[in-house]
């Protein structure tokens, strides 16, 4: 697959800001690919999207689309000439236009017959057929969402940008719409960059996840690789509950005291082993080296906090055993579920 969108060392520093909103971000997005940009609020995700859309000017770096330069220190291409469309937080539907007029708004370069055909196609695709004469305020949140998507998809943009499209919807509704929308985007074959702070959304819909932290792109990969093989403590904890257990040198090998086990790694200076609470095996043992500190019933599992080698370890236990505070236990984890990182920070 060829790269549709290319970012090279893109940097944006706002006045009076402590660190750059976007710092040296490089990224290649293939045609038809769906990438989510994941991170906490203030991490620079929205700014990156606005830079690609042309609503902010980068200080340094280049942005290219299908080989054409959109932004460089010398060049600029106006948002309306980029062929990139954007779905904003809160949709930004035009309240004084009907659903049909909203969708038609970006089709001004088409002949009217082609335009009508395209509108019909979008209405069918987004299942809005009966609603075309309604005004935005007469629609439900989910319908407004679909109008915003239809409006952006209609001009057949090279790239679709979505900025937290679900932030205004409640969680249950958001999950339903997210799945519908992901299907829609796949069917349309649009190259998509999707900003979210919800890990669950990112994992469910993306080909690749780009994790941003303090303006930097800290990791880029498939959902599975980012989840199972995080590069830093930040990524490990962002993607789900994680234990970060100390790793030390012992007899020329790497040893994790909390698990009382050797770990495999090729890193020259490993610092932590990342182990998800679901992957830790906890067994009652009279002379066990670890002690149960706290227990909390969570419905599908029991969350245990265990003191082991002066570290606290979270365990999600799904077995029949009933643990009590003060029980002696032994902890272990399958070697392939232990991932070692080097993050002195």
């Amino acid at each position, binding site marked *: 697959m060829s790269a549709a969108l290319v970012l090279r060392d893109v940097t944006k520093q706002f*006045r009076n800001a402590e660190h750059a909103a976007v710092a040296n971000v490089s990224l290649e997005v293939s*045609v*038809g690919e769906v990438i989510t940009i994941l991170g906490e609020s203030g991490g620079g995700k929205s700014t990156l999207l606005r830079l690609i*859309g*042309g*609503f902010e*000017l980068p200080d340094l770096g280049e942005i290219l*689309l*299908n080989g*054409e*330069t*959109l932004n*460089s*220190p*010398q*060049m*600029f*291409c*106006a*948002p*309306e*000439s*980029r*062929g*990139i*469309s*954007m779905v*904003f*937080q*809160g949709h*930004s*539907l*035009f*309240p*004084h236009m009907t659903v049909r007029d909203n969708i038609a*708004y*970006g089709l*001004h*370069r088409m002949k009217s017959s082609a335009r009508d055909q395209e509108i019909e196609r979008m209405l069918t695709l987004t299942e809005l057929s009966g609603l075309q004469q309604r005004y935005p305020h007469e629609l439900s949140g989910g319908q407004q969402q679909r109008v915003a998507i239809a*409006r*952006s998809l209609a*001009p*057949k*943009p*090279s790239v679709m*940008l979505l900025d937290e499209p679900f932030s205004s919807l409640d969680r249950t509704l958001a999950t339903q719409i997210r799945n519908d929308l992901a299907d829609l985007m796949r069917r*349309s*074959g*649009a*190259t998509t960059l999707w900003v979210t702070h919800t890990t669950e959304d990112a994992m469910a819909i993306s080909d690749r996840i780009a994790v941003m932290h303090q303006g930097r792109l800290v990791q880029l990969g498939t959902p599975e690789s980012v989840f199972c093989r995080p590069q830093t403590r930040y990524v490990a904890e962002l993607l789900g509950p994680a234990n970060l257990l100390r790793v030390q040198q012992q007899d020329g090998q790497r040893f994790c005291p909390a698990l009382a086990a050797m770990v495999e790694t090729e890193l020259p200076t490993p610092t932590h082993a990342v182990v998800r609470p679901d992957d830790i095996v906890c067994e009652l043992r009279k002379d066990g080296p670890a002690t149960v500190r706290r227990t909390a019933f969570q419905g599908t599992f029991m969350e245990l906090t265990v003191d082991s080698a002066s570290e606290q370890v979270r365990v999600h236990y799904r077995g029949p055993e009933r643990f009590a505070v003060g029980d002696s236990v032994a902890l272990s984890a399958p070697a392939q579920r232990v991932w070692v990182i080097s993050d002195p920070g």
Partner: protein
Amino acid sequence: MNVAVAPAAGYPRWRQRLSPWSVGAAAMISVLLVPIAVVALSMLGRSSPTWQHICDTVLTTYLWNTALLVAGVGACTLVIGVSCAWLVTFYRFPGRAVLSWALVLPFAIPTYIAAYCYADLQDLVGVDMMNLPGAILVVSLVLYPYVYLITCSTLQGQSGRILESSQSLGRGAAYSFWRLGFPIARPAIVGGMTLVTMEVLNEYGAVHYYGVDTFTTGIFKVWYGMDDTQGAMRLAATLMMLVLALLLLERLQRGRKQFTTCGSDYRPCMPGQLRGSVSWLAAGWCTLPVLLGFLFPVGQLLIWLKQSGASSFGAGFAKIAGQSFVLASCAALTTVIVAVILAYTVRLHRSRLITALSKASALGYSMPGAVIAIGVMVTVVAADRGVLRHVAGFFGAKPGLILTSSIVVLLFAYVLRYLTVAVNPIEAGFERLCGSMDEASRALGHSPLKTLLQVNLPLAKSTLIAAALLVFVDVLKELPLTLILRPTNFETLATKTFELAGEEMIAQSAIGALLIVATGIVPILILDRLLCSKRPT
């Protein structure tokens, strides 16, 4: 997949910063600010003998009178405005609902009209109003709504929880207001008083009529009486420095403290019920400003109208009224167009320079009308004499003063003075109504101009109308600037009323004055709506 190829019409980066919008807006503001710069620069020039004479003789009087007027009106408006706002916000008493908006009505009466109405008081009750204390009282009676309105909106914006927590700590309502409500509202109150002070410095008709010599009347005397441009410019420049110092002080007093109620804890406060004689006292206190500031002047005008009849204004009443309305409409339209271009460019570029220029355009509103008029006059005469003579000479025509004393110049001066009145609501309107909608339009392939026409303007329609109306009414009642810059024999309702009053024919001016007052009620209704929509719900 089916991908439309990006047109990718890229262009060099500098062209993004120097778009037609940014260049146009910067050029507009720069031209507008020339007269103000001309006045400021006159301080550096050579001083004329008359100026020396002015310094030796009347300058101290001007300074002293102006200072007393500002201090007196400041004190009176503070007492009236804050006390009424406090009573209306925190207590229930008979007539409160009506009084809460009726207290704004004196806004509709221009100071000079109030002054004429009160001039007869000596005949009626034997009180001589034609002096400094009289001027202070009359001006205060129509300017206190600035303080009242702004205090009301701040007090109502404060969360009732603040006062409730004070009361739960064992403090009474009056003490709570003194220690909490008043200090929290302080920056807003000072802001309101700054506006009052600017109006006082701008004041010409009333002080002239009452024979109080202030800076503004001084400018007129030196300009027309002594025919000394330099001297008038210097007086104007001194007045300008006073205004700038005032603006600076106001900025400083706001400081770093945050005075807005934080977070989601907002809850409107429940007014307490006043009973017995106290409640009637409160009602009486709040009725007094409405009575003196609005009902009395309007009543007086109606009596005069009955005495002299509608035709007494002069044969040309319909002509003058029509002329005034057309002039004010043109000024409002031009101002709104300039304001839209400016507000949209600020939104489009968000560059430091454009934002600074848009802020600088507010200077016009804080400058007294006479200062602006002098600046515009001097600039235009220079332009006429210099630039146009060259142009005319090139074409072989006989040079004359083309621009001077033309309607175009008058319109230009109105735009300079009232631009901020339009820019503020329009900027807020774009921000509130358009969110990222104009960016959505850009992302769908429409140019900035088309976006403005199809998205921003239709959405901000009511804001545009409100802005235009505010400018319209301000222009309709404007006096000092119009007096100086109007073409010869061109009369507006305001100048004709002023002239008739000056010729001791006040009664004959009643119909014109009433028309000005009636239109003046319009922005009160708008303001009330704007304030209501700002309140948290």
